[in-house]
């Protein structure tokens, strides 16, 4: 089962190793991991998507989160779970294409709201952002046509809860008032995001 965590960590050498080492120790595969500066000085923001084995039980998310809190450099961890959130991934896709068959790719790119960011005599590069399923959809149709996908570079998922300061931690600390009623879980949907 996939779990998505957003973590604020100290921006120091070795922190990535500590976080990654924790997942390794728990024998949990990291599906994707993105790190970058956050709005907080001296703290980085990580989005970690992890595939916890089903035998870890329904509480796997809680346990991973609690274990992450044990790391001294981890400031805050949020388990996004199925809460309303916006998820994006960026991908660069290089496709073999010549002047003869470019126009077909342009059409696909238009449909997927992607962009051409580089054009060479025998190849072109597509930039696409969206949810995982959208990116995989484009790669799939590219593979189904005669154009060859030469390279794919994907950023991994970045996730942010919808609405104002909605992390569970702030609620638990009573900073953000009582827990708001939980809206219907919103499924990531290809059609919504395209």
């Amino acid at each position, binding site marked *: 089962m996939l779990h998505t965590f957003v973590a604020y960590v100290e921006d120091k050498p070795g922190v990535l190793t500590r976080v990654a080492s924790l997942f390794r120790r728990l024998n949990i595969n990291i599906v994707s991991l993105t790190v970058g500066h956050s709005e907080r000085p001296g703290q980085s923001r990580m989005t970690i998507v992890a595939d916890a084995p089903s035998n870890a039980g329904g509480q796997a998310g809680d346990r991973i*989160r609690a*274990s992450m809190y044990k790391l001294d450099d981890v400031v805050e961890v949020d388990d996004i779970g199925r809460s309303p959130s916006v998820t994006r991934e960026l991908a660069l896709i290089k496709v073999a294409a010549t002047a003869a068959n470019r126009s077909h790719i342009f059409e696909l790119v238009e449909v997927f709201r992607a962009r051409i960011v580089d054009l060479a005599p025998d190849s072109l590069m597509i930039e696409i952002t969206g949810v995982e399923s959208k990116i995989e959809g484009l790669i799939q149709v590219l593979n189904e046509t005669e154009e060859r996908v030469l390279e794919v570079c994907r950023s991994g998922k970045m996730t942010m809860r919808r609405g104002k300061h909605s992390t569970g931690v702030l609620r*638990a600390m009573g900073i953000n008032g009582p827990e708001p009623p939980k809206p219907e879980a919103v499924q990531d949907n290809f059609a919504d995001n395209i």
Partner: protein
Amino acid sequence: MTTPEENNAHLSNSITGPTRLTGAEIIWATLVGEGVDTVFGYPGGAILPAYDALRKFPIHHVLVRHEQGASHMADGYARASGKVGVAIATSGPGATNLVTGIATAMLDSIPMVCITGQVSSKVLGSDAFQEVDITGITLPVTKHNFLVTRPEDIAPAIRSAFQIAKSGRPGPVLVDITKDAQQASATFDFAAAKPRPYNPHPMLSVVDSGLKDAAALIRASKRPVILAGHGIMQSNAGEQVRTLAERMQIPVGTTLLGLGSFPASHPLNLGMMGMHGESWVNDSIQQADLLIACGMRFDDRVIGTPATYALNAKKIHIDIDPAEINKNVKADVALVGDLRQVLEQLLPLLPGRDGSAWLNQIAASKGDAAVRDIKNLPDSGHLYAAHVMHDLWRITEGRAIVATDVGQHQMWQAQYYRHDHPRTLITSGGLGTMGFALPAAIGAKFASPDREVWCIAGDGGFQMTACELATIVQEKLNVNIAIINNGYLGMVRQWQEFFYDKNYESTPLVSPDFVKLADAHGIPGLAVRDRGDLEAAVQTARGHQGPFLLNFLVEQEDSVYPMIPAGAALHEMIRRPGSNASHNPLLERPEDQ
């Protein structure tokens, strides 16, 4: 005119405000500021600047014979005192030799700070002589670690290390300090190096919602059992647990590391649970309708297998570490927080109850399994380890601090030496580290110089760290040593007997004459073969001023009973052989109660 020593001692006293010091001096000044008076260590190239500055500070350095001994001594010191133990080693092999001791402390949540020298920051990562990435190596076995390359970072790192080591769920912290950071100078300001305050987990908020549920479960339960763990000692909650047990008439089973947290002689104490726990404790747990886990983590040696563990019982799990909740056993109510504080909030919700029906049921179920009074057992003159443990308990009146190693003797000690007081049993529970007992006993002696300290080790484990006998002599320590010598790696032999068709591969053990080995160190000793000589030998050791070694040559193929085979259910114990089994005199007969 003052001697150089007096001048130097002055340095430590004269530091009242910000002072210009070398990094090496800052290490010791910070330790003094943290209240450290004893450290266990071994010098070497990359830590030499620190050792050069040591004489200026009022800290006693115990020179060990192997760095593993240093980390176990710091561990034993911490377990006996409740304070943070400190070990020091040089870079490379010095640092890697600490690792077993660090992992031992990690698994048992022991507050410890290890300081290692590191090669100069200019050559870091170049495979310099005696360079090893010790912060990388110890990443999974420390609570946190630091690599310090600048003198101004030393005091904040060490102060943070102490804070992290003792806050929340305690654990070991390593501070790796490069040689150039020790040699360069910086302004030392102890107060300014204060670490950021310890913030309890945001997840600790679970407590509020769970208290009422927990109280309701306790009030409604008919067959409750308290599971008393190491956390009771860590949070100093012995009194609160006792109040809970007495007020609600709840029987108490303890884990191995929980021995002493609840008095063994208390009528509500059932004894030790788990793999080699008493059968009636494990049976009570299996029949219980409520388990109240106090500072314990449902280790696999305690639960057998989660699929069969206490299936009829609701579980209230009180632990300071949220990561322990639902890890091995699913909790119905989780109270995450400091045990003492949680119980102080919980107790006002519990008015008291009559638990006699359940207590009587347990008493009846003890039946023929309840014999522990070895004095009345058939005496063939043979010496059994159980005799040794029982007599040591009787003769020391249960007041000694006992450090045990790992294996059969460890279990016999846990079964037959009754611990009424916290911090009197020092043993490696989680990691099961052979070679732990002797150095841990040395550390405990430094923590409690006025207490009687016994090291009890098997003939196998003792030889792993026997070099520390020299440390005992150099430090003129009064530590008594009992070797339970059966000529085998006994616990492994027992597993081979039970589960590997008695294929005693690589478990028979040829050992030196331990009495002569002690003699070579200037330590007197006695070999004891017969039960009749036991008491006199123990009294001789106790009466001797200074260390004394007793080599108990016990029955060779004795086994620890009862036993839950690994992965089996708690009620599927292998019981003691019946009266028709001739090889074991520790029979269980109801008339011996």
